[in-house]
C-alpha cells in the first residue's frame, strides 16, 4: 500500500533523512519510533507530499512521488485522497467549530452533502469521546481534546491509509488506549483494511497494536521488524523503554 524507498532529504546542509525506507501493507499497522529530531515527522510529511525530498521514491498504490521531481497537482490530490494524516501540532482550523472541523474533509474534499458529513463527523467525535463539544471552537478545548478532534477529522474522510504523528501524546493513558483501540479496529476491519503508520512514544501501545516497528535514528532506519522482537529485552528498541 505505502512504500517509501531510500528517501533522502536535506534541510540546508543537514541530511535530515538519510536513505530511510518503510513499507506498510493493507490492514497493517507500522509503528515508527526513535529519538526526538530523528526525522519521523519529516518522513511522514514526505509520504503525503507536503515536503519535497531529494532522492528516493514514495509509492502509494499506483501513485508515485520521485525525489527532486515536482509531482503533478493531480497526483498530489489523488495521493491525499488516499492517505490521511494526523499532525503532531494538530493544525485544527481555528475559525470553525469542532463539528465543522471534522466535517470539512467530507464536505470540501469528498463533496459529500452537509447532512451526510454531519452524520459521519458526529460518529467519529462520539468515538473519541467528544460528543458534547460539537459547537466549541478549537481554542476552547484542552490539549487532549484538540488532539482527539484532529484524529476524528483525519478518520472522517475514510482514507485507505493514515499517517499518525504522535496521536496520543496529549492523552491520559486510559484515553490513549481507547484511541489506539479505535485505530487498531480500522486496521483489522475486514472491509476497510486501512494501512497505518503511527509515530508514537507510547511503547506499551506500540507493542499492543503494531505489526511491524521501524526504529528511525538520525534519518536512518536502523531497525525494522516485529514489535515483539524490537522491544524484547536487549532488543534494538529496548533502550527506548
Amino acid at each position, binding site marked *: 500500500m505505502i512504500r517509501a524507498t531510500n528517501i533522502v532529504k536535506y534541510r540546508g546542509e543537514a541530511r535530515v533523512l538519510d536513505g530511510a525506507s518503510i513499507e506498510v501493507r493493507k490492514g497493517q499497522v507500522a509503528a515508527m519510533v526513535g529519538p526526538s529530531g530523528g526525522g519521523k515527522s519529516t518522513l511522514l510529511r514526505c509520504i*503525503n507530499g*507536503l515536503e519535497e525530498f531529494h532522492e528516493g521514491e514514495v509509492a502509494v498504490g499506483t501513485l508515485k512521488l520521485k525525489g527532486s521531481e515536482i509531482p503533478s*497537482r493531480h497526483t*498530489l*490530490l489523488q495521493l*491525499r*485522497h488516499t*492517505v*490521511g*494524516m494526523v*499532525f503532531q*501540532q494538530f*493544525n*485544527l*482550523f*481555528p*475559525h470553525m467549530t469542532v463539528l465543522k472541523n471534522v466535517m*470539512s*474533509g467530507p464536505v*470540501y*474534499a*469528498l463533496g459529500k452533502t452537509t447532512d451526510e458529513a454531519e452524520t459521519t463527523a458526529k460518529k467519529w467525535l462520539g468515538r473519541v469521546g467528544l460528543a458534547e463539544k460539537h459547537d466549541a*471552537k478549537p*481554542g476552547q478545548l484542552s490539549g487532549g481534546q484538540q488532539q482527539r478532534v484532529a484524529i476524528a*477529522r*483525519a478518520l472522517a*474522510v475514510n*482514507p485507505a491509509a493514515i499517517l499518525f504523528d504522535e496521536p496520543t501524546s496529549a492523552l491520559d493513558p486510559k484515553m490513549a488506549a481507547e484511541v489506539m483501540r479505535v485505530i487498531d479496529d480500522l486496521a483489522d476491519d475486514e472491509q476497510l483494511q486501512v494501512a497505518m503508520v503511527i509515530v508514537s512514544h507510547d511503547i506499551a501501545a506500540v507493542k499492543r497494536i503494531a505489526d511491524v516497528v521501524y526504529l528511525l535514528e538520525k534519518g536512518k532506519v536502523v531497525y525494522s521488524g516485529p514489535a515483539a522482537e524490537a522491544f524484547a529485552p536487549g532488543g534494538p528498541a529496548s533502550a527506548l523503554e
Partner: protein
Amino acid sequence: MNQRWLLVAFALLIGAPAFAQDKKELRWGTDPTGGGPYIYKDDPNGPYVGFEVEFAEYLAKKLGRTSKPVEAEWSTLPELLDKPRTGEKGIDIVLNGYEARDDLKQKYASTVPYYQYRLQLVARKDDDSITGWADLGPKKSRIGVLEASVAFDYCNKRYPGQVVPNKDVATMFNAVADKTHADVTVQDNPACVFYVADPKYKDKFKLVDDGRQPGAYLIYLRKDDKELLSALDTAIKEGLKDGTLRKIYQKYGIWNADQEWLCKELTGDFPPDDDAQVERTGRGGARSVWPLIPQLLRAAGMTIFLAIASFPLAMLAGVVIATGRVYGPVWVKIPLAVFVEVIRGTPLLLQLYFLFFILPKQFPVLAFDPIYIGILGLAINYAAYEAENYRAGIQSIPRGQLEAALALGMSPFTAIRTVIVPQAVRVVIPPVTNDFIALFKDTSVCSVILITELTRKYNELYNFNRDLVVELAFITAGLYLLMSYPLSVVARVLERRMGASAAGGHR
C-alpha cells in the same frame, strides 16, 4: 446595470429651477457675487439686500414697475443690453457699480451719476506703519486690489510691483486681516465701509487717509430707450433732492460729502439737512452656514454612492489578486505584482484622467459616463491596495493550516477558499476598514472627471462664502466623519464576532 435608472436617480438629486417673467418689471442686470453693500444676502435663502437693491426698488416704484434683478457675470452685463429685453436674461438697465467709461458711453446711453465713489485705502487697525497713501511706496506695502479695476490701474501706476491683484473682494480683506499676501487693500469706498463695519472684522481694519480718484457710478441702458433714460435721470435727481437716496445710502453707511456735491451738481442745490436717525444695516450675524447644508448633503450622497459602489469590487479583486500572488504559478505572480506596483505607485488622479480622457480616444467603445469611470477607476486603484492587505492576511496564517486542508484531500483552490481566506479576512479587517474610510475621501479625486461630490462642493461653497469657511470646513469634516464612523463600528463588530481579538483581555 441599467444606466438609465442611475441617471434618473441623480437627476432627482440635483433638480433644476424653472423661470418666469413679468411684463411690468424693471429688469436690472447685476452680479450678486460681487457682494455687499451693493447686492448681497443676509439669509442665503432670503431675498437680496443692498443699497443698489433698495435704489432699484425706489426707481421701479417711481416708474410704476416692480424691481427684478437679473443675474449675470459682471463683465458681461453691458452686453445683455445688446440682446432683446425679453427672454430669460433680458434686462432694461445695468446697475451694479459701473463707473463712467468711454467705451460704454459710446455704445450705450447712461444716466446721471447715482453715486460718487472714491478709492479708499484700508489697513489693519494695529498697523501703525500705514497712516496715509504716502506710506505705501516707501514701506513697499503689498496692495491688494481687484483685478482689472480702477483701483488696480491707479495703484499699479503709482506703486509698481506692489500690487497683488485678486478676483474677490472678501479674499482681499481676509488677506489683509490675516497678514498673508497683502498689507493693505484699495477698494471703492462702499465696499470698504461694508467690510470694515462687518462684526466679523470688529476692530480689525481702519480706513486710512482721504479717498482718491473720485468717480461716478452710472446706470447704462439702450441708446434708444430715451423715455426710460429721462425717467431714470429724473428719479435720481428727485431721490437725491428729497432725501430718499440719502436714507438708503445712510442705511448702508455710505452717504458722504461727495453725494451732497453730486446733488448740487445735478439739481443746483445741496440736499436738505436730515437729522433723523437711520438704522444702519450690515451683513451682521444673520449670515449662517445652515442653509448651505442641503447642498452639502446632496454632494455627500454622491460621495457615499461612489465609495459604496466601488469598494466591494476592489475587495473582491483584491482577494483574487492576493491569492494569485501568494499561491499562483510564476506566470500569474509576475503580472499581478506588476499590476499592484504600477497601480498603487501612480496617482489615482492620473489613472482617472487616463481612463476618462485618454483611453476613449484610442478605444471609443470605452467612452463611458463619468460615474462609471469613477467607480471603475476607484475599484481598480483600491484593488491594488486591498490585494496587499489580503496578502498580509494570508501570509499571517500559519503554514500548518494549508497543510492540514491539503492533507484532508482538498484541492488547493478549495483549501484557500475555505480555510485560508476566512482566517486572513479576520486579520485584515482594520487595514481594510482604513482603506474604505480613506476611499470616502479619495472619491474627491473624481472631480477631475466632472463628478461633484462632497469635497468639490465644499470648495465651491467655500469660494462663494469665504467668511463661512471655518463653519463649512467643520461641517464637511463632520459629514465625512458621519460616513466613516458607522464603518468603524461595523468593522469592530465583525472583528469581535470573528474573534480576532486574540490579544485582548490579558492582565
